[in-house]
């Protein structure tokens, strides 16, 4: 779903991406070798930061990273993350996603990418969800036309700015790197 003119300006990380990237950062610093998935996630985050892309996680994931007992592991990434808060209709769209076979956790992540609110940037939604969950990505892309139809049916009934909401592109860290360095 990527093309050469696609330039994401905002990316939402799922739990797996954050977990793999932080593990990768720790292993690099300790001089240990990196499994490919950790290397890809860590490099993808480096690339996005280098490109000044706005980086987000859900409030629940941010809550984990902000806990004092987790600050050391979160330290490489935490200062670069921006908070997203739930905008109206986030729950409704997550319910629709679940009806289409998306798991509860994934449904909320994808819904934050449409209705997550960034007060400081005065914007909502993100261009991309960066995910290590290949099954989610395959399911999302396989059912994309149906999801888009339901999304359009829902948002077209809503007022501005909700009717301008969009669906994100789901990509894996490996795809992001392949695309950047092709």
């Amino acid at each position, binding site marked *: 779903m990527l093309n050469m003119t696609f330039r994401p300006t905002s990316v939402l990380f799922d739990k797996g991406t954050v977990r793999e990237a932080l593990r990768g950062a720790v292993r690099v610093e300790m001089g240990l070798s990196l499994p490919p998935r950790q290397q890809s996630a860590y490099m993808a985050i480096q690339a996005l930061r280098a490109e000044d892309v706005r980086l987000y996680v859900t409030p629940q994931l941010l809550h984990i990273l902000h806990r004092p007992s987790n600050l*050391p592991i979160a330290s490489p990434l935490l200062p670069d993350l921006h908070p997203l808060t*739930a905008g*109206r209709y986030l729950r409704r769209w997550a319910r629709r996603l679940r009806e289409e076979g998306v798991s509860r956790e994934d449904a909320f992540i994808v819904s934050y990418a449409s209705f997550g609110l960034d007060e400081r940037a*005065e914007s909502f939604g993100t261009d991309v969800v960066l995910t290590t969950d290949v099954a989610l990505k395959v399911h999302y892309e396989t059912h994309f036309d149906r999801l888009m139809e339901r999304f359009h049916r829902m948002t077209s009934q809503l007022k501005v700015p909700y009717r301008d909401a969009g669906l994100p592109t789901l990509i894996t860290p490996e795809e992001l790197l392949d695309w950047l360095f092709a």
Partner: protein
Amino acid sequence: MYEAKEVNTMMTVTVDPMGKVGLPDDILQTSHIQPGTELVVIAEAGKITLIDRQGLAKRDLRERMQAVDGEMRARLRHALEEGGEESFFAGLSLKKYLALSEEEEKALWTRLLKEAEREVKIVEHDIPPHFRSV
């Protein structure tokens, strides 16, 4: 991974009366530059350098990524120097964290997320009309 191999090929070419230079096949093959590739031309006294525009952008990105890597690792080192090694993640020391299997680590993050979902309820907010959808 994502590193280009450096292979140098040197040849002599002559600038023709029209100011044109033909690039031999060997030079094109070694440089991975093909007919139609957009090149950046950098001229200095006695020297002209041709660089694949996309290649230049990739090299620039790699350099910026290295800078980001340095910054992220410096933050981690600082956290470890401040006592983070003993209490690194979810009550585990750095050593115990590194000893977790992938399955154990996944399970730990899943447990933490479930706790966070109980502690951070989703409260929806109105989106002001002037906010833009990205």
